[in-house]
């Protein structure tokens, strides 16, 4: 964990183009990065702060650094669309394309106001546009190892999404794979400082008074950057997307709608600001 944090800080300090890597939302563990400069790492360690419980996140300073580094890219819009790196296995490409085709095929009767603000209609065309204007390339990475499925490494390339072998290795409901992909796609937004996560409150308890913990490490999420204070961040936007699919998708199977509801309710637990939560609940109930 410490080693990974040092690697991340090293990457930030040097801001080395295309070489330094920081898992944006991946798991703990070793990253696919070049050997770091130890002295720089030690210098950076004092300020390094990474989640010990669930997912990595970045600080406001890191988001600012990414903005500065990729300012040119922010100002210069590119044509929508993405490419796969050559090393992305054919079966992973096939699954990703099948999942995106599933999303592109969706049609909804209507959409909530927050959904319209972020994505547009509950429509495959709008979901595709959202993804393809944010993600320009898809590559392979360990994303910190463990059970991670996808990540974005903003200091390496803020518009590139990385997938892991777990994308096809594990048996996820299809909508949950897309939840992760769209959560990560939101994190590519350099102009919005990548929608950095908020620090979960201490104590951090669910609606039943139970401590919120990482399902994997068992560590409390209290004090960790694994929450959102706005409906517009990565947790909020993916919750809104799922909730709208659950409520309004006209050509989804009943299973997809049920799955979307299950995952949306789970993600809602990461919204910690009372006003943001109320705004979302009101949005869903209208």
């Amino acid at each position, binding site marked *: 964990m410490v080693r990974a944090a040092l690697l991340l800080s090293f990457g930030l300090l040097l801001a080395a183009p295309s070489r330094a890597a920081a898992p944006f939302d991946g798991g703990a563990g070793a990253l696919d990065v070049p050997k770091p400069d130890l002295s720089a790492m030690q210098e950076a360690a004092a300020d390094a702060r990474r989640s010990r419980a669930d997912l990595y996140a970045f600080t406001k300073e890191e988001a600012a650094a990414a903005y500065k580094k990729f300012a040119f890219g922010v100002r210069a819009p590119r044509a929508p669309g993405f490419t796969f790196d050559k090393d992305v296995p054919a079966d992973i490409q096939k699954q990703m394309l099948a999942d995106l085709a*599933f999303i592109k095929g969706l049609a909804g009767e209507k959409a909530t106001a927050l959904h319209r603000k972020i994505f547009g209609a509950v429509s495959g065309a709008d979901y595709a546009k959202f993804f393809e204007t944010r993600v320009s390339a898809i590559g392979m990475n360990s994303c910190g190892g463990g059970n991670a499925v996808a990540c974005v490494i903003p200091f390496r390339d803020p518009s590139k999404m990385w997938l892991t072998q777990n994308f096809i290795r*594990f048996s996820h409901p*299809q909508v949950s794979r897309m939840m992760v992909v769209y959560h990560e796609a939101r994190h590519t937004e350099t102009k919005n400082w990548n929608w950095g996560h908020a620090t979960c409150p201490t104590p951090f308890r669910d609606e039943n008074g139970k401590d919120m913990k990482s399902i994997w490490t068992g560590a409390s999420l209290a004090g960790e950057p694994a929450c959102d204070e706005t409906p517009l961040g990565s947790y909020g936007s993916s919750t809104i997307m799922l909730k709208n699919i659950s409520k309004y998708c006209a050509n989804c199977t009943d299973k997809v709608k049920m799955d979307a509801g299950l995952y949306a309710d789970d993600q809602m637990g990461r919204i910690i600001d009372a006003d943001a939560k109320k705004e979302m609940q009101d949005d869903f109930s209208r």
Partner: protein
Amino acid sequence: MRRGAWAAAILIAAALLGWRAARRSPPVSVPGAEAKATLALLEEILASRDDNDPRLDREFVALSSEEKGLFRAAYAARPRERLNERGTIVYLLGRNLTAPEDWAFLREVAAEPPCLSLADCAKPSADAGEHGDAVTLAYPSLVALRQAHRAAQEGAPADEARSVLEAARASKAPAVTRLARALAPGFDKKAP
């Protein structure tokens, strides 16, 4: 002497009838062609990993007891780590709750011990993962509870539905107990 001959004749006749009956109808454990075709369709959809296959809604309605038996066997035969596939089978069986054994199956699934990691349900993973993994790990149990809740809302026997809720409440998986708490009020009243 005559009585013994009669008894022997009756025994022989019974054995003969039994043998002929056995030849005429296959053993119960051998599935019929229709049930096998339904299972093959399920396997085809599961292999496609396409949760939005419209046949999931269109087919698999009013499953026969033979088909349900095959689906339960398919569930049991799958590694626990095939969470979406197992959950899909639970989902389909949860739409066909007509017999006590259907409810017993949902109860068993709702009460399953937690899956400890996506790679191996028997071994915990110390590595971090994705948000939403708590739902994925408990997916079959969550689906069982959801389907029992839906059935309760649609007027299914309240005691059967509540037995699934109670099984979920006793689960060791936090995601399952959390959903059980959220859905509990809905088990007492039907949807308007």
